């Protein structure tokens, strides 16, 4: 690896290219776009958690003045179950076509059953009420324990487990050594069971789209998503329109965190636009977002860890049941595959079970599955360390995975930075500081570690030099958290010019090469790789152009500080030729200067973090408050430290919400009872302290700039760190999330029990 050093822009806190639009209100998010002739689409949703749809009569709705089109499942392309999986990335179109619109059965309250387009939103909503759906209401189950009972109502009869119809849709395991033998060597063994509730990604921008379909089928989609190419492909699959006829234009995206990696509205709006001949806009309400999109899984995990007296873990067994919601596909790979990965454990069995129940289909949420697994494992780690009378960070160091350790999910680790994160946490001012006086409120400190795989994958970039010698970079990944700023830093660094001369835009599907989702902590890793290669091609062109002008060999020209120079006096004496000068001469010297690269990027190493959390508990009210927090992470190389810290701080804030307050609450009728920001309680500003970040930078040797993904690891250890801190404060363990005031009081008021589950 040949990292640029003495760098001017990489590592600097530059101003992001899209910042001005966002601080002035100019930025165009999906719901901000309108079109002449536009009409409004609305979705009719099932009120039942589980019901067979015997018939739908849309005739009254169609006759309502102002209604322009109605669609039901018969308008969506069917992917029959028996014909097998049709995969698009990790999504099976058999589930997707049934998730965007219920086919034979409604499987959760909020499941779409029809959609209407009308001249106004109010008329469309009125028309939805006129649609008559003949439901046969069926028994349902919401929770894992109910869904896996032998007599549980089965969501999908075709789904078999152990030869019988079941709601368990899949199992995976990661195995290493022999756990039975391993546990025999253990001096202490601790086994605990944990539950977590589903939590929503909670992006502030609801799903929205505006879609125009011309009579020849040419379709334009403006929508906010984590991938315009995913929107194009899924919409094409589900509507039958060829991908080449669909132009998906990425609007600014108002948060995603994994929740905008699938489509909900786009296929419906496309079909409504096609039928009506009018552009159709659809915007979800917050209630629709909460009832029918995301969340991530609720879970039930059992973790058993065995260690010797001297603090070596000899065996571990994890069983992770995760809710998939209405269709198979919960993130068991993240739970089973990530939770033990920070440790070198000779005998390990980690199992994941995918459980369907009558909730909305889960969507990815920041290191999907990994925080759920880490919560269970890291809490047991804390108990084992305590039993061994070891400092919890020393216990982690003693068992830490390092270069050469074979992870249970397959890889033998290259140079990784896990140990460095534990050491940095241990040496942090936070870990050394006394807890301070809570004035009667118990205080405690907890630690936890986390791992996420990180991803590479398909990425495309085009870099063009403008006629005045500036730069336009086009990539294909929506920018959620500041990736444009990182790309501008890198491109400016390589070209040796001011970062403000680099404009970074997100191309639509018909103007830039295929680029996979913004997800998996992959965007800056992948896009900066293709941007680097494109920029290197441009530098090569610039050297060739200068060589031609100077009539010397291109090898005798070097690119430095934004200009071509002779490599040495031997090459000849020439005044440098700047980027501007070469751009001006371009028409006469070989034409436009631009380069594009498309790659399936490889070499995204996993990421590790270790967190330290202090809490203070009001034992009268049951309120636990996080009063100090430090997140340490191996970030590879912080291309833009401000936005790397932002990722860490944001992930921590989400984890604190998950730990302390956020959960889906259901009524006895099986409906979500808190589908709004008032009752689904995400952390607000006054709930949180400042969040300190320690960025350990161990450059990724497989990336030209040393980049590692950073976006997901920060959520992984948080719930365990908070739970361990609360234990440290109260001397009582919590085995269920969230640790909200009623639950805290329940545990405090049950002095005879060791813990509440």
């Amino acid at each position, binding site marked *: 690896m040949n990292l640029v050093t003495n760098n001017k822009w990489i590592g600097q806190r530059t101003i992001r290219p899209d910042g001005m639009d966002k601080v002035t209100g100019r930025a165009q998010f999906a719901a901000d776009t309108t079109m002449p002739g536009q009409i409004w689409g609305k979705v009719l949703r099932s009120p039942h958690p589980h019901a067979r749809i015997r018939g739908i009569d849309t005739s009254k709705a169609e006759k309502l003045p102002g209604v322009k089109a109605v669609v039901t499942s018969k308008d969506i392309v069917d992917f029959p179950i028996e014909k097998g999986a049709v995969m698009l990335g990790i999504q099976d179109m058999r589930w997707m076509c049934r998730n965007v619109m219920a086919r034979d059965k409604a499987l959760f309250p909020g499941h779409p059953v029809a959609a209407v387009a009308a001249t106004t939103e109010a008329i469309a909503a009125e028309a939805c009420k006129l649609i008559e759906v003949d439901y046969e209401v069926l028994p349902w189950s919401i929770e894992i324990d109910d869904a896996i009972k032998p007599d549980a109502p089965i969501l999908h009869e075709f789904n078999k487990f152990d030869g019988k119809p079941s709601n368990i849709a899949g199992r995976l395991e990661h195995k290493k050594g022999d756990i039975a033998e391993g546990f025999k060597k253990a001096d202490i063994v601790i086994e605990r069971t944990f539950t977590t509730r589903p939590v929503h990604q909670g992006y502030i921008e609801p799903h929205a789209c505006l879609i125009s379909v011309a009579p020849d089928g040419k379709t334009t989609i403006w929508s906010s998503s984590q991938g315009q190419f995913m929107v194009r492909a899924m919409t094409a699959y589900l509507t039958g329109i060829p991908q080449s006829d669909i132009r998906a234009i990425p609007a*600014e995206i108002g948060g995603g965190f994994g929740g905008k990696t699938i489509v909900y509205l786009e296929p419906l709006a496309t079909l409504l636009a096609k039928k009506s001949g009018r552009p159709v806009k659809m915007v979800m309400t917050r209630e629709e977002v909460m009832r029918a999109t995301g969340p991530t899984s609720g879970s039930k995990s059992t973790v058993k860890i065995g260690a010797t007296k001297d603090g070596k873990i000899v065996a571990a067994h994890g069983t992770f049941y995760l809710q998939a919601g209405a269709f198979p596909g919960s993130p068991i790979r993240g739970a089973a595959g990530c939770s033990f990965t920070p440790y070198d454990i000779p005998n390990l069995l980690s199992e994941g079970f995918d459980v369907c129940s009558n909730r909305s289909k889960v969507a990815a949420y920041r290191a999907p599955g990994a925080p759920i697994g880490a919560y269970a494992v890291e809490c047991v780690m804390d108990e084992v360390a305590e039993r061994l009378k070891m400092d919890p960070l020393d216990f982690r160091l003693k068992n830490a995975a390092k270069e050469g350790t074979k992870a249970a999910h397959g890889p033998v680790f290259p140079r990784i930075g896990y140990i460095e994160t534990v050491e940095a946490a241990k040496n942090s001012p936070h870990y050394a500081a006394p807890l301070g006086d809570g004035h009667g409120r118990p205080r405690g400190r907890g630690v936890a570690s986390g791992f996420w795989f990180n991803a590479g994958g398909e990425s495309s970039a085009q870099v063009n030099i403008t006629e005045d010698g500036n730069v336009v970079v086009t990539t294909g990944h929506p920018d959620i958290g500041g990736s444009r700023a990182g790309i501008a830093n890198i491109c400016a660094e390589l070209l040796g010019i001011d970062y403000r001369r680099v404009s970074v835009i997100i191309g639509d599907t018909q103007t830039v090469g295929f680029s996979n989702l913004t997800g998996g902590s992959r965007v800056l890793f992948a896009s900066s790789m293709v941007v680097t290669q494109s920029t290197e091609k441009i530098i090569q062109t610039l050297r060739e152009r200068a060589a031609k002008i100077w009539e010397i060999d291109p090898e005798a020209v070097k690119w430095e500080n934004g200009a071509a120079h002779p490599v040495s006096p031997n090459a000849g004496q020439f005044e440098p030729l700047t980027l501007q000068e070469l751009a001006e001469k371009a028409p006469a010297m070989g034409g436009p200067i631009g380069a594009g690269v498309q790659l399936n990027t490889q070499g995204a190493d996993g990421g590790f973090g270790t967190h330290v959390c202090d809490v203070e508990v009001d034992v009268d009210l049951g309120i636990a408050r996080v009063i100090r927090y430090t997140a340490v992470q191996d970030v590879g190389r912080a291309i833009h430290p401000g936005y790397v810290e932002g990722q860490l701080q944001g992930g921590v804030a989400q984890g604190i919400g998950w730990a302390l307050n956020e959960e889906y609450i259901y009524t006895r009728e099986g409906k979500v009872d808190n589908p709004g920001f008032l009752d689904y309680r995400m952390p607000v500003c006054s709930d949180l302290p400042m969040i300190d970040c320690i960025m350990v930078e161990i450059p990724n040797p497989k990336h030209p700039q040393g980049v590692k993904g950073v976006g997901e690891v920060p959520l992984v250890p948080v719930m365990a760190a908070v739970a361990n801190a609360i234990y440290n404060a109260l001397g009582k363990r919590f085995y269920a999330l969230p640790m909200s005031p009623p639950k805290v009081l329940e545990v405090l008021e049950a002095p005879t029990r060791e813990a509440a589950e």
Partner: protein
Amino acid sequence: MAKVHVTTTINGEPMEFLCEPSDTMLDALRGPLALTGSKEGCASGDCGACSITVDDRLVCSCLMLAVESQDHEIRTIEGLANGEHLHPLQQKFLEMAALQCGICTSGMLVASDALLRKNPDPSEEEVRFWLAGNLCRCTGYDKIVRAVMETAAEMRAQ
């Protein structure tokens, strides 16, 4: 139903628009007035993304009827900068990376401006409680709070 004619002042400019009696101020801003800087995150006054000021009072525009703006002074994110000169808060948000996806940013800036007009020297706790009505899911609020505090310090020094 007949539409209502409303005369008001928005960002210092006289404005007129037609709306349904049941339309919210946010509907009017984003619809007939084409001021889409105010965002709808919840329509229930819980996220603050649609924050505006009405006669210098901070309001969630989704909780106010459009007809209520008659003869009042409305300020939105579009009125925060003075021509090509950014408000110090806007500049500081850019410099300190106090935004990520940007959907809450308009509301955060309007609310922060309302705070600094009322209290030019807020403590961290005061900033946190004032902004508790503005949800941000990306930043963890750290950089936002720091940017507001630092802007306040700079504005006091001037």
